[in-house]
C-alpha cells in the first residue's frame, strides 16, 4: 500500500559545540555563532519515513519545515537522502513562535497538504527540548499520536504498529491512521546522503534563494520542476496572524541564567580493598551504578 508521509523537520543550532558566545546578552540564542544543522531526532524520523517508503512502493515522503530562508537546507538534506519534495513555511509573521504558535502554523500547512497518511517528527529539537510540537500538531489536527517511537514495525489496513521506547522497557502499540508519530533518538540512525540524489538535487532552491544568488544554472530550475522548492507564507496556508509568531505565543522568557558547572566535593581514596568496597557500596546505594 502506498503511503503519503510527511516528515516534520527543523533546522537547529548545533548545540553539541556550544562556545561562550552561544547566548546573546538578551537571553536569546545567538544563531549566528552556531552552525545550523538538521535536528538530530528529525533525522531519526526521516529514516523511519524512508523505511516505510522502501517497504511500500509508490509512497512519497514530504519534508515540512518552518524557519528563515536558509532552513531550505533541511529540505535539500531530506531530498539527498530519499525524500520526494518539501515545503518551507517562512514568513516574518511566523518569527518568534513558541511551541503553540509553531504547531498552529504547521497544522495549517498540513491541512493545505491535505492528503497524508502519517506524519513523523523527531521527539524534540535540541534547541528548545520541549517535545511539544509533535503532540500539539496531532491535537490540532484531531488525530491520534504515538510518542517515543523507536521503530515503526508495520503499516497495514489503515493501522500502524509502533515500538515505543519507554523509561524501563519497550511497548508495542497500534494506531489508526492518519496519525502523528514522534521518534526517539534511540531509533535507527538516518541513512547517509546518496551520491546520485545529491547530484540531482544540489541546485534545488526556493524562490527567495534564487533571487539571492544568481548562478549559471538558473535556467535549470525551469527545465526541471523538482528543483523548485516551495515556500509558504502565512497567507499561503491561510493562517490567522494572531495565532502566529510572537502574537500567538503565550510563552514568555522571564530570565535566562548561565549555569556554570563546578566540581562538587571530591574524595580521595587509597587503593586499599576496603575503601574501594565502600565506594562501590555507596555508588550502588545512590544508583550511580548497578
Amino acid at each position, binding site marked *: 500500500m502506498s503511503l503519503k508521509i510527511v516528515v516534520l523537520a527543523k533546522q537547529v543550532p548545533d548545540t553539541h559545540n556550544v562556545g561562550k558566545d552561544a547566548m546573546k546578552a538578551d537571553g536569546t540564542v545567538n544563531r549566528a555563532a552556531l552552525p545550523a544543522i538538521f535536528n538530530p531526532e528529525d533525522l531519526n524520523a526521516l529514516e523511519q519515513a524512508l523505511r516505510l517508503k522502501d517497504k511500500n512502493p509508490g509512497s512519497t515522503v514530504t519534508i515540512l519545515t518552518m524557519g528563515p530562508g536558509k532552513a531550505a537546507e533541511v529540505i535539500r538534506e531530506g531530498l539527498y537522502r530519499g525524500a520526494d519534495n518539501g515545503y518551507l513555511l517562512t514568513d516574518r509573521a511566523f518569527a518568534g513562535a513558541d511551541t503553540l504558535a509553531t504547531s498552529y502554523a504547521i497544522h495549517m500547512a498540513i491541512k493545505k497538504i491535505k492528503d497524508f497518511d502519517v506524519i513523523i517528527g523527531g521527539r524534540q529539537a535540541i534547541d528548545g527540548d520541549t517535545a511539544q510540537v509533535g503532540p500539539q500538531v496531532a491535537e490540532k489536527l484531531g488525530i491520534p499520536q504515538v510518542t517515543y517511537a523507536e521503530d515503526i514495525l508495520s503499516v497495514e489496513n489503515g493501522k500502524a504498529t509502533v515500538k515505543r521506547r519507554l523509561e524501563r522497557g519497550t511497548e508495542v502499540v497500534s494506531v489508526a491512521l492518519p496519525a502523528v508519530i514522534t521518534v526517539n533518538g534511540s531509533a535507527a540512525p538516518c541513512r*547517509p546522503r546518496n*551520491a546520485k540524489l*545529491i547530484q540531482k538535487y544540489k541546485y534545488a532552491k526556493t524562490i527567495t534563494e534564487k533571487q539571492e544568488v544568481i548562478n549559471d*544554472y538558473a535556467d535549470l530550475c525551469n527545465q*526541471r520542476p523538482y528543483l523548485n522548492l516551495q515556500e509558504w507564507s502565512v497567507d499561503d496556508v491561510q493562517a490567522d496572524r494572531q495565532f502566529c509568531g510572537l502574537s500567538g505565543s503565550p510563552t514568555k522568557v522571564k530570565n535566562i541564567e548561565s549555569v556554570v558547572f563546578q566540581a562538587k566535593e571530591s574524595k580521595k581514596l587509597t587503593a586499599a580493598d576496603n575503601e574501594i568496597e565502600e565506594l562501590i557500596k555507596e555508588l550502588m546505594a545512590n544508583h550511580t551504578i548497578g
Partner: protein
Amino acid sequence: MANFYKDNAGLRFQFSHPLMKKIVDLKERNYAEKDKYDYAALDFEDAIDNYDKVLEIIGEICGDIIAPNAESVDHDGPTVVNNRVVYARGTQENHDALTQAGLYGMSLPREYGGLNFSMVPYVMAAEIVSRADAGFANIWGLQDCAETIHEFGSKEIKEEYLPRINKGETCSMDLTEPDAGSDLQAVMLKATYNEADGWWYLNGVKRFITNGDAEIKLVLARSEEGTTDGRGLSYFVCDNHKDGAIKVRRIENKLGIKGSPTCELVFTNAKAKLVGNRRMGLIKYVMSLMNGARLGVGAQSVGLSQATYDEALAYAKDRRQFGKAIIEFPAVYEMLSIIKAKLEASRALLYETTRFVDIYKVYESIAEERALEKEEKAEGKEYQRLADAYTPLLKMFASEYANQNAYDCIQVHGGSGFMKDYTCERLYRDARILTIYEGTSQLQTVAAIRHVTTGTYLKQIEEYEQAEIASEYIGLRDRLKAMTGQYAAAVNTVAELKDNEALDFLARRLVEMAGHIIMGYLLIMDASRDEQFRESANVYVQFGQAEVEKHAKYIAEFEKDNLAYFRK
C-alpha cells in the same frame, strides 16, 4: 563528526590539476548525458562540484562509521558458518552505509547504474576508505571487477552483472591457488564446456581469495585441456548463489587486514560464463585487472600512510616528556616530517599515475563508440605507456612507504605504540600485506625495470625539468637535475655490464633512483601551485638525494663477480 575528505586539503588540490579538464571533458563526452540522467554533470565545473560533494559523503561515512568500526572489525573479523562467510558486524555496517549512499560502481557508466566518475575521484575515495580501514578497503575496492567486466564482457554479461554492483553486490577476483601464487601460469582450476546447455562448469580449489564469498566472481580457470601454461587459461564470470557449488572451506587467520575475509574455496560444478575470448584469460584480462588492482593498492597504501601520519602527529603533540611535547625534539619532528614527505610524495605519484590511467582508459572506451582520430590514438597510446610505467613504480613506493611510515608511527609512540591500546599497532599489521599482494615489490621492479632501460622514466623526467615552477624551487630543481645525471650514469653503467643477472640484481636500485627523482619533481610542481606542499618538497628532495647518492655509489662500485658472494 569527522570528515576524511574535507579535513585533507591535499585531496581537493588534485582537482585543480591542469589535466583534469581534459580528463573530465573526455569522460563525460562533452556532457552528452546531461539531459538523459538527472544526476549527470552539466559541464566541467559542475562535474568537479559533483566529485566534491560525493567525496564529502564518503569522507563523512569514513569518519563517522568506518574508522570508528575499524578496531572492532579487526578484533572480531569475519567467520565461516556453514561454508559461508559472515562479515564482522562493523564490516556489514560499513558496507550497508556505502551501498545506501550509492558509492559502489563509482566509475561505471550511468547506463549500468554507475556515477561515471573519472578515475581521480574514484581513487581518492579508495584512499579515504583505506585511511579509515585498510582491510575494509579491499571489500569496497573489489568493485574494480566491474571495470573488467565492463571492459571485456559481452553486452549480455554487462547487462546481467553491472547494474547489480551499485545495488551493493560485492565482487571477488579468484586467481590464486595453492600452487599458483605469483606464478599464475600454473593455475589448475578446471573449466569444462557443456555443449548441451551452453554453460561452462568450474571444478577445483582457489586459495587466498579476498572476499571469496562475494556474489559476483571473476575466475581464472584452465579451459584448454592438456595445456600447462598461461595460454590455456580463460576468464569467467560466475554467480555465487551461495548454494553448494562454491563452498568456503576456511578463511585464513592473518597478521593484518583481518576484517577482509581471505578464503579457500572449493568449486564443484559451478556454472560460469566466459568473459571475452578463450585463452586470453591470463595474458590479457588478468594483466589488465592487475594494473587496476595495483593502482588500488597504491591508493590503499597512501590512505594507510595518511592514517599513520594522523596518529603519529596527534600523539607527538599530546605526549609530554622532559617538560615538553615530544614533537618539539628534533629526533621526533624529523620522523614526523619524513612520514609526511613520504606520504605526500606517494600521493603525488598516485594521482599522476591515475591521470595517465584516466586518459588512456577513456580513449579506449571512446574507441568502442567511434574510430579515434590519429592524434587521439597516439595520445592514448602515449598515456598508456606512461600508465604502464608509473603503476609498478607507484605500487612499490607507496606500499613500501606505508610500511616505513607504520614502523615510524609506532616509534613515535614509544612503548605505548607496542600495546594494543593504540591504533598504530593495527596500522603496522595492516600495512604489511601492501608490499606483497597484487604483485610483490620485487615483481613491481621486474615490471618497472624495462621502463628504466627503454628510457620512459628519463624522458618523462626531462619533461618535468621543462615545467614552469616557482622561483623558490629552482634550487631544488638543480638538485633534481644533478640526481638525474647520477641516474642516467647508473643506467649506463649497468647497461655496459651486459649481464642480465646483474641487471636483475641492480634493478631495484635503478627503479628507486627514478622514483625519487620523479616524486621530487611532482612535489616541486605541486608546491609551485600550492604552498601546502612546501615543507614536503624540501624534505623529500633532501631525503631522495641522499638515497640516489647511495644507489649511485653502490652501482658505480659494483662488479659482476661480486654476485658470487650473494648467490650462496
